[in-house]
């Protein structure tokens, strides 16, 4: 199972083109109305903090290359496009999943995964996560945002990732809970297992996660971390055992199994399975062997 998961990710990457050759930023006179307003801004690597003052960690951890920001103006109305070039399509998808919330009904004419309201349109395509933002009370905003997004999307190369979440059980899965995890910051959006990258993902290994119904209780969360080798998975598992968050009490510690209880008296279980680590947390009942 674990080898299939790793191969699946490799195939997903190989099916995707990397960088677009056309400028996805509209030029002056777009739609016969909108002109570029002030020079565009570029934020590379950790300088993303200059744009998102707190909150950049998840972008950097998933794999961030650069952000281009350009504002446009028409009769006093302003909007902006922000194109986040991530390191790979999975990273871009990861950011989109974090930000999309309950996506709701978008626009059927716009084919990239997206969310749309009068203030913001966000979409993911290929390596790019893009937001188009209404900065003033622009009339007919949704149509304007769609036009800008459509222009950009046509100039960003897309790719087919396939069902990268296939290894996660479908039964009982909470809609909208899928997540990509590549280190401690994206992991803590699912669950706090400890500091300093407890699963040793290092921004290079990828885990997938989802929530599952537990009747009237809060959902549990399942995290499936996939490594390039059994050695790496074992190292991650040993690190987890050694550096488990101090607020989690270890109940069972075995070579390939760890059971713990958290600050809310819920339970968690981590199991080493070849090249993968499966972690199930926020369980109302203590896991049995």
């Amino acid at each position, binding site marked *: 199972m674990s080898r299939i998961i790793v191969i699946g990710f490799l195939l997903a990457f190989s099916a995707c083109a990397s960088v677009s050759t056309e400028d996805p930023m509209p030029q002056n006179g777009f739609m016969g109305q909108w002109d570029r307003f002030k020079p565009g801004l570029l934020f590379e690597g950790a*300088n993303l*903090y200059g744009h998102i003052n707190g909150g950049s960690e998840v972008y950097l951890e998933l794999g961030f290359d650069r952000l281009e920001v350009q504002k446009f103006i028409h009769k006093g109305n302003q909007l902006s496009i922000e194109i986040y070039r991530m390191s790979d399509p999975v990273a871009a998808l990861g950011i989109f999943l974090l930000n999309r919330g309950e996506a709701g009904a978008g626009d059927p004419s716009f084919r990239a995964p997206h969310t749309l*309201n009068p203030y913001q349109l966000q979409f993911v395509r290929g390596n790019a996560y893009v937001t188009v933002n209404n900065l003033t009370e622009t009339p007919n905003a949704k149509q304007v945002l769609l036009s800008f997004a459509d222009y950009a999307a046509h100039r960003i190369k897309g790719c087919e990732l396939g069902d990268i979440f296939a290894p996660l059980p479908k039964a009982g899965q909470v809609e909208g809970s899928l997540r990509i995890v590549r280190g*401690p910051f994206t992991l803590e959006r699912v669950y706090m297992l400890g*500091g300093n990258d407890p699963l040793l993902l290092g921004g290079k290994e990828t885990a997938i996660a989802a929530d599952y119904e537990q009747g009237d209780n809060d959902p549990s969360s399942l995290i499936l971390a996939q490594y390039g080798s059994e050695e790496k998975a074992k190292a991650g598992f040993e690190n987890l055992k050694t550096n488990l968050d101090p*607020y989690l009490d270890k109940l069972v510690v075995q070579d390939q199994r760890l059971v713990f209880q958290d*600050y*809310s008296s819920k339970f968690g279980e981590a199991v080493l399975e070849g090249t993968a680590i499966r972690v199930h947390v926020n369980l109302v009942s203590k896991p049995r062997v």
Partner: protein
Amino acid sequence: MNNPYTPVNPDRLFGCDRRRFLQTFCCTAAGGLMLGAPPLYGQDDKKEKKPEKPAIKTNIGDYMKVPRARCAIPGLFPGKVVKVTDPDSYKDEAFDKDVIEKMVHKGIRKLTGKTMKESFGLLFNEKDVVGIKVNPVGAPLINTRHEVTQAVIKWLTDCGLPKENIVIWDRFNESLEEAGYTAKNYPGIQIHGLNRYSVKLKEDGTHPDEPNFDKEAFYYAEGVEGKTGKETMDLQYLSQHVFNGQHSYFGKLLTRKITKIINIPGYKNTGNGVSMALKNLAYAAICNTGRLHRPLFFRVCTEVMAAPWIRDKLVLNILDGIRGQYDGGPGKNAQFVYSNHSLYFATDPIALDVTGHNELLAKRKEMKVKVSEHPRYFSYFNDCEKLGLGMANKDKIEVIKV
């Protein structure tokens, strides 16, 4: 008014023995993850204190040596938060300026128990230079509303404060301008960013806004620098953050000009924490902050507030919760913005943020957002209380709803 809090030795608070200096750089994944676990205060008292881990050395001890001013936070009303709610404040996608002004009046009067004129006299005098710290990020959705800022300015000027003694400020000039905080929209009021972030460095490689910062007033974090070793990225960092060493300097605006601060933050999350009163000030008052997010996020929100240039000047906080954002923050994310119709008033920024944190937590649960109640997202409030900055125990905070 007596401060009921007795500050503890800050070096023991963060697991760093004053007599032992760190020999090696210990980098934390995020503020709080490696700080150990200070005793919880009013939260889960059943948990034993966890072993402390080595922490990054800062200069918080220097701040604590400076005697507190009379009006130092938590201010005249420790542990007291007034929440004013009016559904007419934002209706049919329009803000009602008059309703919001009335809310500001109600909130201040209820907080102080005095008239508006008397409240002014409690907190200011006519010679004060008042810095209004807005949050311009996320315009037009979740930035500090102009209607709130304008109501506050009107109160100050009606009570005799000259317009030229009022400064609307933030870290970056461009952010203020983008959010509409301009000389044109606020005639006679000073608009002041600590630095520009899209400016070319000088020939000697320095930022032209270096003179805006006070080299004698800083937040020091040992071994934490804004350098990557890659020239282009380091130059970009400098053009935004002005300096990239181990010191984050306070703006001279705060150390040498402003005598009082009114803090008007937005109402939003940052991951499982909040970006409200503490974040709004702590990360805006100093430069070179990019280096601090990963290793020291919550700790900066705690320690910078203890610096005398904030601690002794911050007299009033008004949390702008007319609209809130319950997820996707701290940047703007329209998916999660909602109408909250409320303003919150406090002299005690800790009590205010605790109140906001708990409300936003409830909202996140209501909206079925993934929530973590790990103690680290709250423990920094307890640390603030131990430093004598305000009240963190939600059972002791008085929230008055109007």
